[in-house]
């Protein structure tokens, strides 16, 4: 039992994950004894868990522990960033969802589910072992189905159904892939030994297995071909859930894809498949978003395209040193920016179509500013951090010998201009505002402001 010797230190190394889990348990148990009007306490617990997790992650990031749990889990910079981004994103999600969730009959369950899914996303990002990958996939996905369906409307149920069925199928594909990889690799599951174990294995089988695992992970990443649920769920679910599911799972999944591709032997050119899926995602997402009029559906498609951009550095894994920093930075920037957009949506309940945002600049200049920052950010314009992310990603692609991917990214960015501006332009004209809901949700409003500001600040501070 070599593992048990270091058990204590291992658990300390995964303190941020443990804190999330503990938070989930406390929220769940505590929530069932808390009167409806006192649920803010549960929220406080959740926030405390997230903040504690983020702080622990920060300390962990300062001195990464390396592989733990017999090498099945990696506590390195990437994991640290995933922990930080997931924790802060979930915080932002809770912030933007305060009004929507508060007083809901399952408020505490919502927080528990958010925390559980966050844990899943983090573990997915840190997994350095195919088996851990599988269970992390499950941990991340299952709460997601509940979050989507929780609104209990027809659309929410439909979204949950689609999410579930796609998640189940792709989970099976993932497990099939893992089975093949374990089978041909002599049962080696840890990434550290996988490269060597697979190097001598039949390349065809390895390729098939790797593609299956990759495609399975695409469910969580929301990229082609696992993207189908994203727009439907984003539209059908509550704003809080939509904001969460278009952001947090991706963070873990993309880092997981990164690690997986890194572990595959050089003879099996998985990068090529990643590149193809990246191009497919960004192109499909952008083209489909062009014609949307419902804001949340538009954002859903937009995230599909963003996953395409995020896959670019993965497509050049091992060919440039820039791939990892590019991916991590873009992830962080994307998470903040995307959540800002959702926060604006959350702050203005009842505005479903682009037309409803006409004249927003006049009625709520601050929100309009946040919307502008987030949409320009998703577009990739300075001074938002996604600009730098996009730059890094394109640079990494070019540097990794895939300059054509950078060109595809640029062409796609041009196409995306169409729908981002179609939202932005009427919102920021000085036309007479369409005042569908005179009330602005305060917490969501503040989340939007915070997101907008930090989306810019990340560029200046973090990139130092």
């Amino acid at each position: 039992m070599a593992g048990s010797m270091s058990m204590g230190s291992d658990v300390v190394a995964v303190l941020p994950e443990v804190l999330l889990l503990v938070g989930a348990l406390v929220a769940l148990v505590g929530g069932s004894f808390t009167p409806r009007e006192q649920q803010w306490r549960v929220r406080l617990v959740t926030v405390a868990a997230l903040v504690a997790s983020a702080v622990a992650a920060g300390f962990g990031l300062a001195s990464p522990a390396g592989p733990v749990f017999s090498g099945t889990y990696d506590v390195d910079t990437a994991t640290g960033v995933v922990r930080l981004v997931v924790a802060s994103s979930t915080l932002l999600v809770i912030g933007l969802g305060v009004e929507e969730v508060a007083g809901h009959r399952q408020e505490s369950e919502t927080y528990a589910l958010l925390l559980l899914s966050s844990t899943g996303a983090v573990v997915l990002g840190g997994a350095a072992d195919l088996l851990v990958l599988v269970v992390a996939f499950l941990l991340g996905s299952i709460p997601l189905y509940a979050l989507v369906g929780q609104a209990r409307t027809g659309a929410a149920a439909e979204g949950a159904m689609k999410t579930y069925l796609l998640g189940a199928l792709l989970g099976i594909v993932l497990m099939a892939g893992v089975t093949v990889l374990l089978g041909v690799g002599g049962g080696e599951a840890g990434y550290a030994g996988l490269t060597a174990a697979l190097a001598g294995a039949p390349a065809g089988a390895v390729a098939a297995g790797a593609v299956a695992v990759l495609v399975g992970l695409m469910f969580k990443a929301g990229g082609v071909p696992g993207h189908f649920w994203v727009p439907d769920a984003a539209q059908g679910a509550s704003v809080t859930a939509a904001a969460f599911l278009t952001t947090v799972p991706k963070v873990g999944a993309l880092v997981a894809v990164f690690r997986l591709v890194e572990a595959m032997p050089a003879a099996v050119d998985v990068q090529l498949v990643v590149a193809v899926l990246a191009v497919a995602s960004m192109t499909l997402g952008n083209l489909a978003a062009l014609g949307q009029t419902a804001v949340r559906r538009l954002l859903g498609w937009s995230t599909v395209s963003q996953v395409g951009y995020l896959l670019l550095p993965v497509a050049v894994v091992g060919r440039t040193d820039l791939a990892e920093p590019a991916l991590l930075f873009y992830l962080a920037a994307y998470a903040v920016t995307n959540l800002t957009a959702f926060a604006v949506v959350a702050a203005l309940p009842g505005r479903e179509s682009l037309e409803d945002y006409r004249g927003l600049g006049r009625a709520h200049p601050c929100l309009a500013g946040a919307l502008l920052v987030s949409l320009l950010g998703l577009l990739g314009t300075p001074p938002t951090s996604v600009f730098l992310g996009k730059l890094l990603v394109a640079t990494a692609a070019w540097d990794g010998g895939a300059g054509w991917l950078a060109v595809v990214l640029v062409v796609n960015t041009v196409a995306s201009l169409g729908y981002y501006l179609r939202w932005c332009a009427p919102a920021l004209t000085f036309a007479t505002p369409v005042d569908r809901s005179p009330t602005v949700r305060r917490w969501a409003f503040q989340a939007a402001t915070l997101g907008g500001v930090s989306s810019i600040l990340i560029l200046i501070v973090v990139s130092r």
Partner: protein
Amino acid sequence: MTPPLALLLLVLGPAVVGVVLALAGTTAGPRGRAVADRAAFPVAVATAAAALGLAALVAAGRPSAQAPFLAGAPLGLGVDGLSAVVVPAVAAVVLLVLVFAWADVREGRARFAGLMLLFTAAVSLTATATTLPALLLAWEVMGAASYALVGFWWREDRRVSAGTTAFVTTRAGDLGLYVALAGAVGGGLLGGGSSTGMGLALADLAALPPGWRDVVAAGVLVAALGKAAQLPFSWWLSRAMEGPSPVSALLHSAAMVAMGGYLLLRVEPLLAATGWAATAAAWVGALTAVALGVVALAQRDLKQLLAASTSAQLGFVVLAAGVGAVTGGTAQLVAHAAVKALLFLVAGAWLTALGTKQLAGLRGAAGIWPVVGGAAAMGALALAGVPPFALWTTKDAVLHVALETSPALYAVGLLGAALSAAYAGKVLVVVFRRAKGGEEVEDVVEHWDGEEQGTREVPRLAQAPLVVLAVAALGLAVLGLPPEVRLLAGVLGQDPAAAGAGAVELVVSGVVAVAALAAVVVLVRAERLPEPAWARAWLGLGAATDAVVRWVLALAERAARADDALGRGAVGLARGVVGTAGAAGSADDRLDAGVRGLAGRADGLAGVATRADDGVDRTVHGVAAGTKRLGGLARRAQTGQLHDYYAQLVVVLGAAAVGLVLYVSLR
């Protein structure tokens, strides 16, 4: 006052005073404008007088000065023999014309005086420029000032158009100077040539290496021919007659047009060095002298006649530059300036008084104001080249050298001289032939006030310059007479022995002039002087210019339409990207309309552009529609049906797996 300072003042003084007056005359309030108008002419005349004094000073002192301008190419000014003669002459004419204008111009006096002074400054700079940048600068300002002066009466569209024609035509020639400047740069004159140490100096042009030298010579030649209204640029001078008469007297006799000839005289060594440029100049000059002589003879409008005659007379100057007769050319230039200024002022005086410049209306006009009539007679006789008046000797000083170069040139030149006598004779006969009987008088008077309301008086102030100029028209004949012409040659730094006309030529030309004059007198009295329409219409130059302008404007229209289509195409693309079906539909409609409209007009050069744009349109249209379709397709895949999602997913998964397996195995 040191000569260099005098030189600077000669240029800057009138410029500054001119700008101040012009601005005061336009932008000051009504009361300020009234004050400016009252003060304008005293100030202007004083400035002109001072300029004349300064001109004399610099002519004596021969200073030079330079101001840094471009890297290695300063603005150089300097007075040499040639400018020492021309600058005072121009200054004198300016002074006289301004005095006349004092009496003649009645509205916008400050603006007028200011622009005239500005123009004077430009001419002084042109005449004293020793580097190409200085020359080009002055040259173009001169053109702009002429635009403002020709279009002085801006309420009438045709006068402004005339100014536009003048400016654009002369600028077309000016492009030559730009080329010349570039050629000098290309030839390595930036930063200083061999002889002067000053960048892009005019004096160094002749020493350029052959290729660039030819470029420079061609450029200068075109620029000079344009300003001097030589063939084929002559038409603008006809249009310029829309300007006030004092303007014609200064710009279109002594100064601007003359500067074209002057420039050629100045760069004569360059022309000679290339060989071909000198020959070309000589022939263009000679042919202009003949062709525009015919045109002048056919005119029925006094100012038009004088304008054509100006071109013709400057033809002799250009001829002089071509054959190397710098002395004769200079003499011709100065003498013509005096004579033509006189004649234009006379025409202006009559125009102001009688309201007409039609010859039919000026019949017997010489008798009404004797001083004016006398001056007119002196001027016309001088223009005719009749002994002992000015142009007789100076023209022969040119022809004498031409004969040495080529008898054919001499013969053509002599024909030109005969024609000058003829049109001058026509003027003489008309203005001195009193109308007899009531019917004829009525015919004449009917023309009065045809162009403006006549004042029926010629003020004393307006008559004074005429007297001075008339004296000059006689006195300047000495410039071409053997002893004095040698003196002039000495001043100009030319070989005195080669200067001046031979006695034989003087006699021949005198006889020819008198004969032609006599013949015209007879013909006019018999009313059988031919006035062919083609000659009256300035050889069709006007029609040709109009055709060119129309063609350019049509081309511009086509280009604009093509450009709009290009823009629409781009908008279509943008809309396609945005992809909203409705918007894209309307963009399509507009695109279609654009394509149809363009296709309907595809002809000529613009047709080619149009067709190209048509292609661009189609492509853009295609891309836009394609993007739109793709957007629809992308969304169609999202059917909402789970089993479709599953099917697509399986296909993608299978394709990816099989693809990679094949790729990996077959590699």
